[in-house]
């Protein structure tokens, strides 16, 4: 019941938003001052080290999970390529980091997300190399940490598991863009109203547009979990091994 109320709240928020033309995306190449660009890179390093160790562990202990790791990466690939129009009148895109985080934890997802962001920065000129650290932090670290926290807390409660997955993936997507707004406001405080002023401006760009997309991301993540569960339930031992 509580989840239904949350969903209702989201819907009202979405419907109540006035149209405005803005877009939420990764931070563009060259748009972070050099000290911030380097700073965010440094912040991501420990997460990436932990993530790579974890991936190594998974591959050694259970080589069957390689395919599932591939699924988590493929999901990020597809979802982060999907630009969706939002009710606010602009477009933004999904992240897809919820699935892998729930399956493998935030460390593993930080590595997978970084690979996708690097691909987009080099081949698509989307995001950027200088802003890669900041974008890794928002999409591949902050988002997954929120997913992990919500999922871990929700799993302990009596709430239906699918709702927990939905909330975790949705809030993770939303968190990614809230963090992006923070990053931009920190680097570009408003000349008159300072950090807070800039933050509220960037938040209106990034967070509001993102709400319907966050809901879409939550639903898509649940769809994949439904499929995984179905095969786990009906399948033979081999599938049990993989999932």
């Amino acid at each position, binding site marked *: 019941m509580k989840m239904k109320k949350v969903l209702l709240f989201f819907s009202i928020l979405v419907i109540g938003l006035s149209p405005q033309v803005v877009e939420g995306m990764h931070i563009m190449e060259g748009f972070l001052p050099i000290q911030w660009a380097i700073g965010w890179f440094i912040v991501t390093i420990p997460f990436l080290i932990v993530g790579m160790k974890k991936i190594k562990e998974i591959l050694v202990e259970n080589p069957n999970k390689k*395919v599932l790791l591939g699924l988590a990466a493929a999901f990020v690939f597809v979802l982060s390529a999907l630009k969706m*129009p939002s009710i606010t009148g602009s477009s933004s895109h999904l992240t897809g980091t919820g699935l892998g985080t729930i399956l493998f934890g935030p460390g593993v997802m930080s590595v997978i997300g970084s690979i996708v962001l690097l691909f987009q920065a080099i081949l698509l000129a989307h995001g950027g190399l200088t802003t890669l650290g900041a974008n890794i932090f928002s999409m591949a670290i902050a988002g997954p940490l929120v997913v992990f926290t919500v999922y871990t807390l929700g799993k302990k409660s009596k709430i239906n598991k699918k709702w927990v997955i939905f909330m975790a993936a949705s809030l993770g997507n939303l968190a990614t863009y809230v963090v992006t707004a923070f990053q931009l406001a920190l680097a570009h405080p408003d000349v008159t109203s300072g950090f807070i002023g800039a933050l509220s401006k960037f938040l209106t760009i990034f967070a509001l547009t993102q709400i319907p997309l966050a809901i879409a991301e939550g639903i898509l993540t649940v769809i994949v979990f439904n499929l995984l569960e179905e095969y786990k339930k009906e399948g033979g031992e081999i599938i049990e091994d993989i999932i």
Partner: protein
Amino acid sequence: MKTLYKNILLFLLVIFIAVSPLVFNKEAEFNGADGEAEAMIGEVSPDYEPWFSGFWQPPSGEVESALFVLQAVLGSAFIFYFFGYLKGKREKAYD
């Protein structure tokens, strides 16, 4: 089969979320350019100049969207391979 129906329903919901802005917000431009956020940076700190630009840019919007499609295709190819693989395993297990 219940899962299938549930998933189809959920997928229709996603499509509704994606399409409804086009119907309910007809005047909007749904800008895909990064220009909007750039403009906001220009507004809050007018003196800022981007100090680095990429080595390469897709020559046109069409080429860019083709590359995005390629990315989505590669990802979905693996996802469908994965579930096809599971389906094959399951059928084999039932034999």
